[in-house]
Every structure is written in C-alpha cells, then in structure tokens.
C-alpha cells in the first residue's frame, strides 16, 4: 500500500489555562487518502476543531503543548518551522470554517481576499491574472455574475454565498487536503445540501482529501467515507461509514445514532437521549471518559480502554470500550433501533 496523503499519529494537544491544564486532544490517530472524506464527529468541546486546526499549526501558541506526528506526503508538520507552515497553510492544506458570516474580513472586497491568497502562494502571478483566476473559482462554486461580485463586500452576500467564497478561496491553490470545520452548521438545510454537493464535486475533480468536522451524523451519512467519533478529547470509535452506522461498537456512538430525529421515520414519542452532559476536560473522569453517562458501565471501566480493533474481519474498525462484541451487539438494540438505552430507563 502506498503512503497515505495525510497521516496523523497519536496527536495530543493540551492548553494551559488559568484553571489548569485542558487536555483538548488525547491521542488521536487517523489517515486521509486522496479523494477520501474523513468525518470527525462528536459533541461540542470534544476536540474536533482543535484536532483539525493542529494539523495546520493553527493551535500553536505559548500556552499550547502539542505532541505526536503529522505528515503530509511524507513531510512532518508538527515540527515544521513557522515559515514552512505558512507555505502549507492555504497551499497544500486549506481550511473552511464554521461561520461564514464572520470568517471573511468585512472590510475587504471578496475578490481581493481571494487574490490575496493566490498571490501569497504564487508571488509571480500578476494581480490581473490572479483576479482572472478568482473569477473562474467563483464561477466554479456557483456564484452567479462572478465578475461583478468580485467587487462586493462580504456583508452583501448571504451565508451560503459566503461559504462558497470560502470554498473558492480554499480551492485557489489546489490543496491536497481540505479541512472543513462544520462548514454547514450555520446554514439552512437547503444551502447545506448545495454546499455538500460542492464538496462532493471538489473531491471528484481534484482528488483532494477532505477532513469534515461536524456534529451532524446525517451530514456524515451523506458524504463521508470514513468516520472518527470523538468524546472528551479521545477517539472512541473509528471505521468506515457502514461499519459505524450498521455495526457501531461504542455506547457513545449508539447514543448519537439514537438521539437523531429522523425525517423518514415515524414520530416516536420519546427520543433515546444520552443522559447527562459531557465531562469537563479540566477534570475528566477516571478510566473510560464516557463512564458517568454510560448505562452499561461495569468495574473494568475504571481503567482506560485501548483503541483497538475488536470486531473480527474488520481490522480498521477500532473502538474504545471494554464490552465484548457480543455484549455490544445485544445491548445496543433499543426498541428495534440502535440506541444507548431504553428512553424510559434514562433519567435526564
């Protein structure tokens, strides 16, 4: 097998805060191949964004401690110098952020913001050439009358159009990896569908690897090839899309799958919600981080479970739970569908 495009191994990120050390990411490993969409899902604060941003060196700072290995096409990034990283940011790795309303600078024209990125990475390109390229990019992401819209300011665009501009900007230097951090969370479902289409097309055309950070499993089902589920800084399960949806191994994943309201299912009276709230990363619970919310917890859960392949014939399907595969398969069925526990048994 050839070297993967992006390789992340045992990534650990902690921040020193006034209240103490926050272990935001605690041993995350994954790979992204060309033309592949890897989704990172989890509740807010679980470390999705920090994982994604660390790949680009955006979490570096005096109070951050970063360990692990990140390689892009064989080049190590965590130890790369700031100027090497500058070439990679926006060049080989581009990023699209959650809130398109605030991610573009309000005081510069749309066109100028794209041109700025092109010319940062290709200084030999003239302004006029860069402008021409920007128009093409805007047309490609479906902005009508792109040439005129180059002179618009971000506040003159709707949320969906701004997110297209962000994508156009990300595409401007033909990145090998695109990191999209909740690219559709702030948008209407109709616009979300358009943006997801855009990402799909991008993958087809450029064979870029995409890391999609989201908390929405429906979006994941729509576009991802592989899924990483994070909980309180740790990966609790990872596998292919089908493995994760049809043979989920971690109780937290069951909880996520169970709590979704589905448009295509009958309206059941109660949703099988996960009880409780995510733990504080300042004082995470001992052993399995999910233990305080897990109805299946038992004695062994006081020790941290390893992230291992436990399902036969699925070497890439990893999870972090002490239950045996047989136990998991029997307890995850709730009212004929996957869930954490019977909703009536759960005290909220």
């Amino acid at each position, binding site marked *: 097998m050839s070297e993967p495009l992006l390789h992340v191994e045992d990534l650990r990120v902690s921040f020193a805060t006034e209240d103490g050390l926050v272990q935001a990411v605690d041993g995350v490993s994954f790979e992204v191949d060309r033309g592949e969409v890897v989704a990172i899902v989890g509740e*807010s604060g679980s470390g999705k964004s920090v994982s994604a941003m660390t790949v680009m060196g955006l979490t570096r700072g005096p109070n951050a401690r970063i360990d692990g290995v990140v390689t892009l096409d064989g080049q190590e990034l965590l130890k790369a110098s700031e100027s090497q990283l500058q070439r990679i940011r926006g060049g080989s790795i581009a990023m699209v952020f959650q809130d398109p309303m605030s991610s573009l600078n309000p005081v510069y024209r749309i066109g100028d913001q794209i041109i700025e990125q092109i010319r940062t990475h290709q200084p030999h390109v003239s302004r006029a050439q860069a402008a021409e390229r920007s128009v093409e990019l805007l047309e490609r992401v479906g902005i009508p009358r792109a040439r005129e819209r180059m002179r618009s300011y971000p506040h003159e665009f709707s949320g969906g159009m701004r997110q297209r501009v962000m994508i156009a900007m990300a595409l401007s230097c033909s990145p090998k990896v695109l990191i999209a951090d909740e690219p559709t969370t702030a948008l209407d*479902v109709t616009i979300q569908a358009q943006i997801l*289409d855009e990402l799909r097309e991008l993958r087809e055309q450029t064979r870029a690897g995409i890391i999609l950070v989201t*908390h*929405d499993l429906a*979006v994941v089902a729509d576009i991802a090839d592989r899924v990483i589920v994070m909980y309180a800084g740790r990966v609790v399960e990872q596998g292919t*899309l089908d493995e994760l949806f049809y043979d989920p191994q971690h109780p937290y994943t069951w909880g996520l799958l169970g709590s*979704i*309201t589905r448009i295509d299912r009958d309206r059941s009276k109660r949703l099988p919600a996960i009880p409780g709230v995510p733990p504080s990363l300042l004082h995470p619970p001992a052993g399995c981080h999910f233990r305080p919310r897990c109805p299946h917890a038992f004695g062994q859960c006081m020790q941290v479970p390893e992230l291992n392949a436990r399902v036969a014939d699925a070497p890439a399907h990893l999870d972090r739970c002490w239950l045996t595969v047989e136990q998991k398969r029997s307890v995850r069925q709730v009212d004929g569908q996957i869930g954490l526990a019977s909703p009536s048994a759960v005290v909220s």
Partner: protein
Amino acid sequence: MSATGADGDATGLGVSDGAVGGHSGASGALMEVEHLRVLFPIKSGLVVDRTIGHVHAVDDVSFTLREGETLGIVGESGCGKTTLIRTLVRLLDPTAGVIRFRGEEITGRSRRQLQPVRRQMQMVFQDPQASLNPRKRVGQILATPLKLRGLAGDRIEAESRALLERVGLHAEHLGRFPHEFSGGQRQRIGVARALAVEPRLILLDEPVSALDVSIQAQVINLLEDLQEELHLSYVFVAHDLSVVRHESDRIAVMYLGKLMEVSPSEELYDKPIHPYTSFLLMAIPIPDPAENRARTRQVVTGEVPSPIDPPAGCRFHTRCPRASDLCREVEPQLTEYARGHLAACHHPQNVSPAEIAAARRSEATPLSAGAETPRLPVSSA
C-alpha cells in the same frame, strides 16, 4: 409541465362555504390568527427619512392553534418565523390582521390590558445564553415571574425548587448564575422561567438549534413530558424539519412571509403537496448511509429572494421546477385537500383526482389571492 394521475393540476376549485382549514371560532381553538401582516418599513431620504419600501416579514398568515396541540413552523432563514411568533405574543405589533386568544381579540389591546393574557403565553428563545440575564442568579430569574403570579416569600422559594426539578435540574442550582450551566441546562432554565407563570401556550423559537444532538434529544423529551403533564400548547419554530416533525402535530411551511403548506405531521414526509415542501424535504440528509445512497436527490437550487420586493404571483416561482406562466401571475389560493392538509400551489403534487375534486378554498387564503378561485385554463406543457 406536470404529469397526469396523482400529480394532477388543481384548478377550477369550488368556493368553500364553511369553516375549513381549522380556521373558525369552533371550540377547542386556543389561538386564532387571521390575515396577520407584519411589515417593517425601510427608511431613506436626503434630508428627512421617508419610507421607501417594506420588508414583508409576515404577509397575510392565518391559522388556528387548538388546545393541547403543537404547531410546528418551518422555513428557511429570513422567512418570517421569528417575526410571526414574536407578534403572536405581541412583542411586535402587527401591521394588519387579528389575533384571538381563547376567543378574545388581543390585537388592539394596550400593554396594560395585555397583562393577563401575556401571562398565559410564554416564549422560549433560541440562544439560551443570550436570553438569561447573566448577572442574576437562577433563583432571581425564576422569582420575577412567580411574583407576577402573586406568590410571596417562602412560596416563591418552594415553587422555584419545584420548577427546577420539573425541568430536570436540582434545587441547589437556585443560587448559581447562568454562565455556570451548559447550553442544554440553560435552555431548561429558559423553559422553567416560561413555566413559572403557568402558561397555556409556549412559543418556542428554535429552542434546540444551538444545542448538540444528544442534548437536543433531552430538551425535546422534556418538552414532550411537560406538554403531557400540564396540557400545554406549543408553537414550535425551527429550520430543521426533522426536529419539527418529531415534535409537532401539525406543521406549517413558510416561505417569504406566507404559508405554503399546512399539514398533519404524519403526512408531510410521505405526501408533500407543495413543491417547496418537497424541496425542503429533499435537502435533508438521512442519517443512514444505505438509504441515503438509494435516494435520488434533486439538487436544490437558488436562494430565497429578497423579502423587500417578493416575486409576484406565487412567491416560490423563481425556484420552482413546476412553475408555469400562471404561477408567475396569479397568487395561488390556500386549498384544503383531505384531512386538513392545506397547500397553496397551482400545480400540486401527490394529490389524487378525487382529492382535487373534493378540494376547497381555505379561508386562510391570503386576501391578495382573491376571494374566489378563478377558473383559469389549465396550463399544460
């Protein structure tokens, strides 16, 4: 343009004579809304500001909310959902139209006269962070509405405890400040505050949009339990159709200030009549990889036009794949098909010829669409 059979064109409908579309003074109605309009003036001028146009935020909306019912309102952002429910509790004044609460008209009333009615309707806001005063303890936040109810001293304390437990929090939380809670817990406090005045009706504006999925489910369950225990009615606003459908008995689909479709929630997914509803449904990804792959999805195109200068005829015609000349000129009537399922479309889908024959004009039809269904030639492709 449209296929024959189930997808027949609904034209040449008879005029309805009676109360249809759940729109009458019949008993069981908690709130009746008739031809409600909320326009925001846009001002500009060289020296003195003149009104040069209006934002048509809510444009001639009528519906009835029954006791104990949950009415869901969905639509893309900017379609007027928030404006509509803020007007229902009279946080905004309507430009035209009538709102009746338990048979009494509340549209013309002054703030003072509204007091007793206000207490029966409460609102829960989207952003649980922004809607709670950060400098007040939970106890104080709950005490204000309890005093309004006429309770005193130790009764307030006891009632606050009871309220917190009811929404799944603990009595010891009374002394804490809002920022010491998670988003889901803050939304519970918002619900507790709404419950404090013992309302009949709670209007929820995107109550779970700012929350994580797992916490969303907790809050949704809580709302359902409360409804059952206290026999509350809800108006539930959200842009997420799957959450709304889970929560509601009936769903109203809004577009650019107008109602496009009102449907019993079981029917909406299987039998959307209005093309816009299909459009919204199609955009929702299904959290099941196999079903998602099996589904052929039409790409949803375009964006919502400006509500300052909404399109003539059917407001949806600029994005509608079924639009005809008729749609561009004539505003469709809200038509009631079987079982209280209303839609405003010249070329409805998923309706049988029998249903078309039995269909009647709903009184909830906007005034601008005319009093009678004109007998227009069937537009064909």
